[in-house]
């Protein structure tokens, strides 16, 4: 059974957030006072440079799953 084309618009399209809205949400989310007591590791770092010290890593993520 095929779906009627008119049903495509059943779900209203979500309006994209403005940068200001995004920033408000992001700061509330990640700078929540509940994190105040959490200590950040001194040598915090993430990443993997290539053997030659290059910031372009050979490994690509091939899918988003």
């Amino acid at each position: 059974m095929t779906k009627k084309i008119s049903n495509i618009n059943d779900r209203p399209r979500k309006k994209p957030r403005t940068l200001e809205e995004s920033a408000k949400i992001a700061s509330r989310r990640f700078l929540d006072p509940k994190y105040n007591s959490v200590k950040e590791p001194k040598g915090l770092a993430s990443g993997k440079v290539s053997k030659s010290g290059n910031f372009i890593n050979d490994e690509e993520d091939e899918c988003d799953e």
Partner: protein
Amino acid sequence: MLATHIDAERRYDKIRRDALKAISIQIDSIQNLEFKLIDDLALSAAKKWNESDNRLVSWEWENYGQFKMSYPKRFELALWHNNHLTSLSLGRPTYNATGLRLDFIERNSDYEDVKVFQITLAAMNVYADALGAKELRVMNPINDEVKKYYETFGLQYVAKGDYLFIRV
């Protein structure tokens, strides 16, 4: 450099700057915090990190130029506090552009006045939203302590791929 690359660089440079400006306005509880792109001043300050005994990586941030050239849509942040470089970070959209990766982040291991990760995540979140990405990924935490720290902010670890993610 191709004209299309220059165009993309210009377009995304504006989005990057606007995103950083937007988050800097929101995070006003921390005085003298500056959100900047990586420039010569930041690279020169990062060079001094080599002298620290607390540093756990030996990255040469001067090599960031190649990353910059390769990824016009990249996320980048040089976070300053009271004129101290507190961290540098670099990322790019995932393969299908549904997420934004944080490929590199390094905190100034001798400066403890600011917690950089949550601020960087918030800045990334704004840029990811502007790109239409739905997920943030933090790639290759350097040790278990760092990984656990990330998990406190709700990020989930994926062993296959060695990264953590959170929905935007």
